[in-house]
């Protein structure tokens, strides 16, 4: 077979590595959020989530969208627990099989879907992702969610909203609204995967091909 036949075209690692190669001209990329700011922003989102859900932590589930959304969901979960003194359920939801752009961008390795043991029926699910762009990933996530349960309410938290939506989707919690042009690339770095926490904005070429691409 050649799985290779349908792989993303040259230079992209296969299976797509979760570690983003930042090999390009880093001088051209501008840090729009640094270490400290990422932490502050997440703390604010955690507070907002607690406020919106009125502290009903038993009914709250944070579901990260792989790869970096899962790390962000874990951090938010830890922050909520610190603020309220009680654990919050955190999981992951792989949306690969629900994407509408596989034919365009090639197949990718699947990531784990990891739901709370008692399911999500009747819960408030907060989907967590790093960058909100076209909205297609979130659309896929909503469809995936539909197949695994029936939450009472679904909300969306993102670290960065870079605009250019292609679907009627908006985030409930936004770390930073970042006006960008379509030719620019946004990279979220997290210490779980990368050498530091940061959000970088650069020209399209920087940092190699963006695994989450323009349709993310």
């Amino acid at each position, binding site marked *: *077979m050649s*799985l290779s036949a349908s792989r993303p075209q040259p230079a992209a690692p296969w299976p797509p590595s979760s570690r983003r190669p930042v090999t390009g001209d880093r001088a051209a990329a501008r840090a729009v959020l640094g270490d400290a700011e990422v932490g502050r922003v997440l703390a604010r989102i955690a507070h907002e989530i607690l406020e919106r859900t009125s502290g009903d932590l038993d009914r709250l589930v944070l579901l990260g969208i792989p790869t970096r959304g899962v790390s962000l969901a874990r951090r938010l979960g830890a922050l909520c627990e610190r603020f309220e003194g009680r654990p919050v359920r955190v999981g992951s939801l792989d949306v690969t099989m629900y994407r509408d752009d596989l034919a365009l961008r090639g*197949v990718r390795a699947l990531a784990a879907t990891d739901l709370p043991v008692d399911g999500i029926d009747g819960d408030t699910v907060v989907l967590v992702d790093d960058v909100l762009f076209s909205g297609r990933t979130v659309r896929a996530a909503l469809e995936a969610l539909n197949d695994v349960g029936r939450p009472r309410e679904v909300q969306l938290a993102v670290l960065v909203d870079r605009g250019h939506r292609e679907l009627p989707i908006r985030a409930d919690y936004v770390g930073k609204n970042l006006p960008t042009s379509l030719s620019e690339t946004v990279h979220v770095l997290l210490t779980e995967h990368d050498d530091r926490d940061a959000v970088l904005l650069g020209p399209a070429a920087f940092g190699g091909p963006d695994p989450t691409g323009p349709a993310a």
Partner: protein
Amino acid sequence: MNRHLLSAADLTRDDALLVLDTAAELAAVSDRSVKKLPTLRGRTVVNLFYEDSTRTRISFEVAAKRLSADVITFSAKGSSVSKGESLKDTALTLQAIGADAVVCRHHASGAPHTLSRWVEGSVVNAGDGTHEHPTQALLDAYTMRARTGRLEGLRVAIVGDVLHSRVARSNVLLLATLGAEVTLVSPPTLLPLGVDAWPAETSYDLDAVLPKTDVVMMLRVQRERMGAAYFPSEREYARRYGLDAARMAALPDEAIVMHPGPMNRGMEIAAEVADSVRSTIVDQVANGVSVRMAVLYLLLAGGQTADQGRGGAA
């Protein structure tokens, strides 16, 4: 550009591991109440079965349906293929209806290769004559990894009619790619001449091999071989190459017993062995669906549809 799965040799180590890892994630879908993924919505998968094989056909059918593909099953019985329509004409028909994948089971070795020259969709070999059965090898490797936790260095004995076994050929190739150590155990009449070129050891002595084995895979003995002087009698075969409780006791404690099915209980495998806790035979069937979902996903999801391919779209 190769877009087919015709032989286990088509898979690199990375490809094979990607299939197994993908299958592991997809296995969870089978536990959900909604067992369906939308991934192959609008794609057409044709099951082209020139040979009866209910379990393989159903396994592919379920796999394709769980990925939301449209599934059409052509069985040799009751369709034009049994009326002498040539493979070529059938291929042209499949091409005309826009099959994105053709899952082909055929009594002639190489038929899926031949078919792959005539259709634009992906061809998946679901067992061809005495040649190969690559998805069976993938599900066997998946089962071994799930039960023993590893493949690298795993000692696997494949026992029985290697000469006529497509399961053995695919397993030898795939397991060698994945770093397992394979020993083929068979009466000399049922080992192919030329087997020395395979990446496997051979032995005529099952009892000598069993104590050094982590996985023992029993091959089905076809009844029709018995008339052809490959061995004197069923009883002698069972005595020398059958896996009974006494032989199973000679295996290391953690060793597992596999069989691709359907079994001849009392011939190559004793009923008490087939039903023992070491037996993975039921797992193999369940894992077959996940592995075939993974293969269909990896071959089809990234590619174009057959219509786009014909239209020459980029």
